[in-house]
């Protein structure tokens, strides 16, 4: 039954001038981000998985079902996928309600799932409107709802936020995070925005110029200094955390991750609930001695696993949390001078000072 839990794809071919040679295998759980610069072939891979584009030299098996191999090609309308396009692409001749129900099985209009989906996406008030009269953010939420209600076994999202302005993005991201937390549906999420990927991704597939650079769990790929992502200014890691306590006086929650505890200001949360912490490498500084009298709340002992130059003046340090370095990994981006002054090297015990943690439901 292990085959039932993986997404295994390989596509090879040319599209005009563009050559694609992409193969990867990731677990069919959580959100897998397909990340890379514009024009690197992410969307083409997604279209191949949906059956909207066909390379004769292709293989696609999702959760044990083979959708494409040498012998056959399952047409798009027979694949149990939901597809959210970059532009919402709602049917302009149908109301929001009929858009939502277009791909839904019969009788879904009165079902509990319908109510849950429109609740989750906050679109209950839009049902009888025409898509023409919706804002960009509302349209994209309806498009997500429409894809979900078609009961997909795999949700494909092609830069669903890239056509939206910053404010609308921030309005929709929480919906996607809630979706992630409340559904067991595997998702492949195409993006060239690392901030989105950090907030959402469990697995990461890095693409460049039609090829796969790396694939694996988000932290393994994003925290690997041998790969380009860890050396970028936006590099970050995500940690799974459990709420351990809440200090109502200061609005601070204690969150436990593998290898340490964080205190994070946030609205009241019940103990035991799960959160996802995203920590940018640029928000982590290092000290040899435990600092005192500082405004930084989160100072955790850690051990340096590696220090890699990033550009001419900076160094990216990979840390393992915990006094013996047995916990989660963390990235820190520091100047090369600090690195030399403190004599930081593999195995050095340090105190990681974390200023700024982004939270998401998990």
């Amino acid at each position, binding site marked *: 039954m292990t085959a039932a839990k993986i997404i295994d794809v390989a596509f090879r071919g040319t599209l005009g001038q563009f050559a694609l040679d992409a193969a990867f295998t990731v677990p069919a759980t959580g959100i897998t981000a397909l990340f890379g610069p514009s024009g690197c072939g992410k969307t083409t891979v997604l279209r191949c998985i*949906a059956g909207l584009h066909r390379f004769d030299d292709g293989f696609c098996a999702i959760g044990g079902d083979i959708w494409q191999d040498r012998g056959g090609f399952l047409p798009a309308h027979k694949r149990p996928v939901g597809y959210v*396009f970059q532009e919402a692409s709602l049917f302009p001749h149908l109301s929001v309600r009929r858009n939502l129900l277009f791909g839904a099985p019969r009788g879904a209009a009165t079902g509990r799932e319908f109510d849950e989906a429109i609740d989750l996406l906050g679109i209950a008030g839009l049902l009888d409107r025409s898509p023409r009269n919706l804002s960009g953010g509302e349209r994209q939420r309806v498009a997500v709802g429409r894809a979900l209600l078609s009961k997909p076994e795999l949700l494909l999202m092609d830069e669903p936020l890239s056509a939206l302005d910053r404010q609308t993005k921030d309005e929709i991201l929480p919906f996607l995070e809630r979706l992630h937390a409340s559904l067991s549906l595997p998702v492949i999420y195409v993006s060239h925005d690392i901030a989105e990927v950090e907030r959402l991704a469990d697995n990461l597939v890095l693409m460049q110029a039609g090829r796969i650079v790396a694939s694996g769990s988000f932290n393994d790929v994003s925290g690997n200094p041998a790969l380009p992502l860890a050396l970028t200014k936006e590099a970050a890691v995500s940690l799974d955390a459990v709420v351990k306590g809440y200090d109502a006086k200061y609005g601070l929650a204690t969150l436990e991750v593998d290898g340490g505890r964080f205190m994070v200001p946030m609205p009241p949360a019940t103990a035991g609930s799960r959160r996802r912490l995203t920590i940018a490498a640029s928000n982590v500084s290092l000290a040899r001695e435990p600092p005192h009298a500082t405004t930084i709340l989160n100072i955790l002992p850690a051990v340096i696993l590696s220090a890699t130059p990033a550009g001419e003046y900076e160094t990216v340090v990979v840390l393992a949390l915990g006094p013996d370095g047995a916990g989660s990994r963390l990235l820190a981006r520091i100047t090369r001078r600090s690195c030399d002054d403190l004599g930081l090297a593999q195995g050095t015990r340090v105190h990681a000072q974390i200023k700024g943690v982004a939270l998401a439901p998990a």
Partner: protein
Amino acid sequence: MGLFPEIAVAVRLTIELAATATAILLIVATPIAWWLSRSRARWKEAVAAVVALPLVLPPTVLGFYLLVLLGPNGPGGFIAGLWGGRTLAFTFGGLVVGSVIYSMPFVVQPIRNAFDALGDRPLEVAATLRASPTRAFWTVAVPLARPGFLTGIVLGFAHTVGEFGIVLMIGGSIPGSTKVLSVAIYDYVETSRWYEASILAAGMVVFAFAVILAMMLIEKRVARAGE
């Protein structure tokens, strides 16, 4: 109309002809337009050119070939023989065949343009929502191409009403069977019945005006919907 039973017959015949031809055209032109819009075949533009031929050919040339095809020695004569007739020329059926061919480009073109304007996206969306190609065609492509269909219907109907050369070649002027409005006007002028001719001519002007106005309104609506 009681004063002019002749005219009433011609008007009725014209409307019957135009309605029949338009109905058949919708059935024939829609798949052709769809194929021209979606196919990647290299020779599809050759097919499009054949469909568009009546735009350029003199009606008499079309009429001549149709006369040969529909006459006693052509396939039309053979088909007429199935029910004991001798020829399809100079019959209402023959006129319908001629009208369908003559008006074809006026129906195919707007429908094809509307299908072209859809692009691939709505059909891809439909496919990812588990709609078979047939269902996607009826529930997405056709409703979204509605303005093209309206334009096609109006133009097909109007062109059939206005055709003259072909009718004269293959229909003659048999009252109640092939004597449509345009031919009736011609006959009235030939026999110096100017009064009747002027009434029909004025009626055609009003009709043409209404058609063109309707077309412009449809286009305006489409432009607004596309915002």
